[in-house]
C-alpha cells in the first residue's frame, strides 16, 4: 500500500515539474548488478547440466552419466552419512552448553561463550589442520602421548576416518546450533518453567517436558543448517577425507576439474545437492514459522534455574567442548608455528621463529596470498555491505515496483553450496569473453554473491526496525530521499552496518569453497594456499600462517565486540 502512495507522490511531483525519476534508474542498476552477480552464474547450473558440451544441444546424458556410476552414488551416500553423524555430534556439543548458558545458574558461563566464539573464529580448515596434528594416527600428539603413557602400539585416535572427519566438522559448526538454541531458550519466559515447578515437576522433568520441547523447532532448524553446511563443506574433507579415502560429494566435484575438465558433469552432479538444500531450507523455514513462542501475556522476568549438582556436569561438559574446539587445536597450531619440526617434542632445539620470518619476509607466494586475502576481504565486505544496505532499503521502503524480484535474486545464492557457486562462476566468467580466470576481481564478485544474503537480511531487519516517519520528517522539512538515507538512515544504523561489515570481512578472509576453481597461482587466497601447503606437508609454515590469520581475525572480532557488544557475531540471521 505504501508502495502505491510513494509511487503516486513521485508521479505527481514529476507531473508538476518534470524531473528525472531516479527510482527507475536505481532499479535498473540494481537489477543489472544482480543479473551479473546471481542470475547469469546460477542459470549456468541449469543450462550446462542439460547441454551437450560439444554441440550445446539439449541432453539428459550428463545426468545419465552421473546416476549411472556407483562411485558417484557412493559419494552422495557418504556425504549424507557424514552430515547425519556431524549433526548428532554437534547437537551433543551445543545443546547442553546452550541450555547451561541460557537457563541455568551454571558457573563460568563466560568460559562457554569463549568456547563458542573461539570455535566460530577458527576457520574450519585451520581446525582441521590442528586436529590432524593432534590425532594423526602416527605422529599426532595425542597418539604419541597415549603410546608413551600406556605402552600400546596402536593409535588412540585416527582423525583420518569418517568419525574423525565428522568430529572435526562438528567441533567447528556447533556454534550454529548453540546460537539458535540459546535464542530459543531466551524467548521462553521463566514463568513457563515456574508453572511446571509449582504444579509438581522437579528441575529434570521441567527441562524434559517444558524447556526442551519449546526450543525444539529452533534446534531442529539449526540441525538442518548444520546438515547443509556439512554437505557443502570442502576444506575439511579435502584435508581429511582424501587421505582417508572417503569420497564425499565435494571432493568428488573437484575430480571433474582434473584434466580434461568436465564442467557439464560437475554441473549435473551439483543439481541434486542444490535440490536437497532447497528442500531442507523450505522445511526449516516452515518449522521456524510454526515455532512455539510464548503464547500470550507479558514475557515476565527470566531467572536462571537452580539445578544443584547438575551445574558441575554442565560446567565440565562446556569446559571439555571448549578444550576440544579451541584450546587444543589453537594451542597445537601455535606450538607448531614455533617449531622446527612439529612431530618432535618441544625443546629449545625445536624452538624457532624461522616460520614467521619465512612467511612474512621470504616466501613470495605466502605474502602474495595474504595480501590478496586482505584485498579480497576488504573489498568483498565493503561492496557486500553497501549493496546489501541499498537493496534492503529499496525493497523494504518499496521504492521501486517489483521489489520482490530483487529480494528473490539476492537470496537465491543461499540455496547453492559455495563450491557449486564457484563452478557456476567458473562457467560464466572464467572463459571468454570476460576471461576473468586468475584475477582477484572474479573471487571478489563470487564472494559478494555468496555473502550478499547475509548482508541483505541483517540490513533488512535494521531498516525494518526504523520508523519510516524518521525519513518522512526529513522530506517534509525539505530534504530529499537521498539526504534522508545519508543523514538519517545510515547514521542511525551505523552500528548494525559495521556489524555486517565485520562479519562479512571475517567470513571472506577464510572462505575456501567459493574460491575453489576460481584461483590460479596469481590470485590465491590464504585458504587455498593452506590446502597446497598441507599437501606438501609444510605444517610448520602453514601453522605460522594460520596463527597470523587467527590473530588478525581475533583482533577484528574483539574490536567489533568492543564497539557493538558481545553478541554481534552470534545473531541468528
Amino acid at each position: 500500500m505504501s508502495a502505491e502512495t510513494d509511487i503516486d507522490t513521485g508521479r505527481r511531483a514529476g507531473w508538476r515539474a518534470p524531473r528525472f525519476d531516479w527510482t527507475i534508474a536505481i532499479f535498473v542498476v540494481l537489477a543489472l548488478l544482480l543479473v551479473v552477480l546471481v542470475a547469469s552464474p546460477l542459470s549456468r547450473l541449469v543450462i550446462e547440466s542439460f547441454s551437450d558440451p560439444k554441440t550445446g544441444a539439449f541432453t539428459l546424458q550428463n545426468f545419465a552419466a552421473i546416476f549411472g556410476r556407483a562411485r558417484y552414488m557412493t559419494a552422495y551416500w557418504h556425504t549424507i552419512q557424514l552430515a547425519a553423524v556431524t549433526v548428532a555430534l554437534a547437537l551433543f556439543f551445543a545443546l547442553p552448553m546452550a541450555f547451561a548458558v541460557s537457563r541455568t545458574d551454571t558457573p563460568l558461563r563466560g568460559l562457554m561463550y569463549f568456547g563458542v566464539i573461539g570455535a566460530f573464529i577458527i576457520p574450519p580448515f585451520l581446525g582441521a589442520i590442528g586436529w590432524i596434528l593432534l590425532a594423526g594416527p602416527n605422529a599426532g600428539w595425542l597418539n604419541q602421548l597415549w603410546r608413551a603413557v600406556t605402552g600400546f602400539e596402536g593409535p588412540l585416535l585416527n582423525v583420518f576416518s569418517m568419525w574423525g572427519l565428522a568430529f572435526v566438522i562438528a567441533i567447528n559448526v556447533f556454534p550454529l546450533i548453540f546460537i539458535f538454541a540459546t535464542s530459543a531458550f531466551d524467548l521462553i519466559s521463566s514463568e513457563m518453567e515456574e508453572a511446571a515447578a509449582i504444579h509438581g515437576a522437579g528441575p529434570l522433568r521441567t527441562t524434559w517436558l517444558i524447556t526442551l520441547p519449546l526450543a525444539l523447532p529452533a534446534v531442529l532448524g539449526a540441525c538442518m543448517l548444520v546438515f547443509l553446511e556439512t554437505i557443502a563443506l570442502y576444506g575439511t574433507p579435502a584435508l581429511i577425507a582424501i587421505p582417508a579415502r572417503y569420497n564425499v560429494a565435494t571432493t568428488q566435484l573437484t575430480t571433474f576439474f582434473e584434466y580434461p575438465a568436465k564442467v557439464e558433469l560437475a554441473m549435473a552432479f551439483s543439481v541434486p545437492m542444490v535440490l536437497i538444500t532447497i528442500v531442507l531450507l523450505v522445511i526449516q523455514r516452515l518449522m521456524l514459522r510454526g515455532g512455539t513462542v510464548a503464547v500470550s501475556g507479558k514475557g515476565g522476568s527470566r531467572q536462571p534455574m537452580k539445578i544443584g549438582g547438575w551445574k558441575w556436569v554442565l560446567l565440565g561438559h562446556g569446559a571439555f567442548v571448549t578444550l576440544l574446539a579451541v584450546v587444543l587445536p589453537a594451542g597445537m597450531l601455535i606450538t607448531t608455528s614455533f617449531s622446527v619440526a612439529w612431530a618432535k617434542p618441544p625443546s629449545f632445539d625445536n624452538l624457532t621463529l624461522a616460520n614467521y620470518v619465512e612467511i612474512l619476509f621470504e616466501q613470495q607466494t605466502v605474502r602474495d596470498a595474504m595480501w590478496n586475502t586482505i584485498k579480497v576481504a576488504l573489498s568483498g565486505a565493503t561492496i557486500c555491505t553497501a549493496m546489501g544496505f541499498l537493496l534492503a532499503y529499496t525493497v523494504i521502503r518499496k521504492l521501486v515496483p517489483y521489489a520482490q524480484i530483487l529480494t528473490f535474486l539476492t537470496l537465491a545464492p543461499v540455496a547453492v553450496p559455495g563450491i557449486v557457486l564457484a563452478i557456476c562462476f567458473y562457467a560464466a566468467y572464467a572463459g571468454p569473453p570476460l576471461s576473468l580466470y586468475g584475477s582477484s576481481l572474479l573471487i571478489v564478485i563470487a564472494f559478494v554473491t555468496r555473502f550478499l544474503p547475509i548482508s541483505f537480511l541483517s540490513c533488512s531487519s535494521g531498516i525494518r526496525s526504523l520508523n519510516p516517519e524518521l525519513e518522512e520528517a526529513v522530506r517534509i522539512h525539505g530534504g530529499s530521499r537521498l539526504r534522508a538515507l545519508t543523514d538519517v538512515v545510515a547514521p542511525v544504523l551505523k552500528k548494525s552496518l559495521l556489524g555486517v561489515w565485520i562479519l562479512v570481512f571475517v567470513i571472506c578472509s577464510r572462505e575456501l569453497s567459493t574460491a575453489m576453481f576460481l584461483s590460479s597461482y596469481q590470485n590465491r587466497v590464504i585458504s587455498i594456499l593452506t590446502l597446497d601447503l598441507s599437501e606438501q606437508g609444510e605444517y610448520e609454515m602453514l601453522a605460522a600462517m594460520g596463527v597470523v590469520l587467527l590473530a588478525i581475525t581475533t583482533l577484528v572480532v574483539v574490536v567489533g565486540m568492543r564497539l557493538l557488544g558481545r553478541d554481534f557475531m552470534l545473531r541468528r540471521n
Partner: protein
Amino acid sequence: MTVLDLKGLTKSYGSFKAVDNISLRLEDGEFLSLLGPSGCGKTTTLRMIAGFITPTEGTIHLDGEEISSPRGVVPPERRHMSMIFQSYAIWPNMTVAQNVGFGLRMKRLPKDRIARQVDETLRVVQLGHLAERYPAELSGGQQQRVALARAVALQPKVMLLDEPLSNLDANLREEMRGEIKRMHDEFGITTVYVTHDQSEAMAISDRIAVISAGRIEQLDTPYRLYSRPTTRFAAEFIGRTNLVDGRRNGARLEFDGFSAPAPAGTGGADGPVLVSIRPQTLRLVPRTDDIAPDIPGARVLPGSVADRTFLGERWDYGLSLATGGAGLRAAGPPEENFETGSAVWIAIPERAIVLVEDAPLMEAAE
C-alpha cells in the same frame, strides 16, 4: 484444613528491603489479596510463598510445617500449591487437556483417573469442547480459563494468583473475576491473590492486605478497609477521598474553617489528627445569601466550584472553601448541575468524618 502462616517475612536485596517484616495468617479456604502499587513487594511475597524466592528473615508455615526460612525452602514442586501467572504460562507445546492434567501426571496418578479429573475440571470452566486444542488456537479469555483449570485440577492446598487479570480487556476482566470467585467458592481452596487494582481486590477478597514499601499498611475486610482506613496510605489507595489535617481539642476535632465532635469511641490526646471524608458523602446546595441551610448532623460551609468534570455517572467537583484552607473534592449526581464559579453550601455529615490517624495518647498522661 489448610493454614498458611507468614511470620516476620523479610526479603532484602542489599540494603533495599523489598519485603519488610510481613506477618499474616490465612485460615482454611480464605481468599486473601495482597494489594499495593507496583514495586511494593506483593509479588515478591507471593513468590516467597511459592518457594521461588528464599526469605532473608522470617518463616512460612503450611499446616504447622515450616516450608520457608532463611535456612532453606521446600522446592515449589513439593509444596502442593498451584499458581496462575501474569503471562498465564500455558505451555504451547501441550494441548489444553495435557496442560490441565500436568500436575496430576506429576503426582503419578493412574491415567484414567487423570482423564476423568481433567474432563471434570474442564467442564467446570466450560472448556470441555476445547480439550484437544493447542493454546495458540485459543482466545485470551480461554487461555485464562485453561490456566485457572490447570491450577484447580490439582486440588492444591494453596492457590496463588499473580495479577492474573492484568492482561485482559475490561469486559473479560470482570467475567474472569467472577469465574475465579466461583472456582474459589466451589472448591474452597485457600487463595492468595496479588493485584494493584483496588476494585478487583474489593470485589473478590475475604480480606485484603494493603502493602506499601514492603510493609502491610492495613489488613482488613474490604468493607472495613473502605469505611475505616487506619493509615493515610490505605485511605488514599482504597477509593477516592479527601484527607484533611486537623487538631484534636478535647472531644472536638478542629479544622480550617469548621469543627466537629470527635467520633464516638475514639479518644486521643490533644494534637494533630488526619481524617478521611469520601467525596460522595458531601452534599452541595446553591448559595444565594449568607444564611446557611440547616442540615441536621452536618457541618455546612460556604464555598464555590473551582473546577468540574463530567464523568457520566456523576459530576466530579473541585471545591474551594470561602474560609480558605485546602479544597475538597465532591461527587454529585448527574442531574444536579453546578456551573464552575458558582457559590455553594458544602454539607459535611459528621458521620462521614473518619478518623484515620488519631493524635497519639501520651504515655505520660496515662
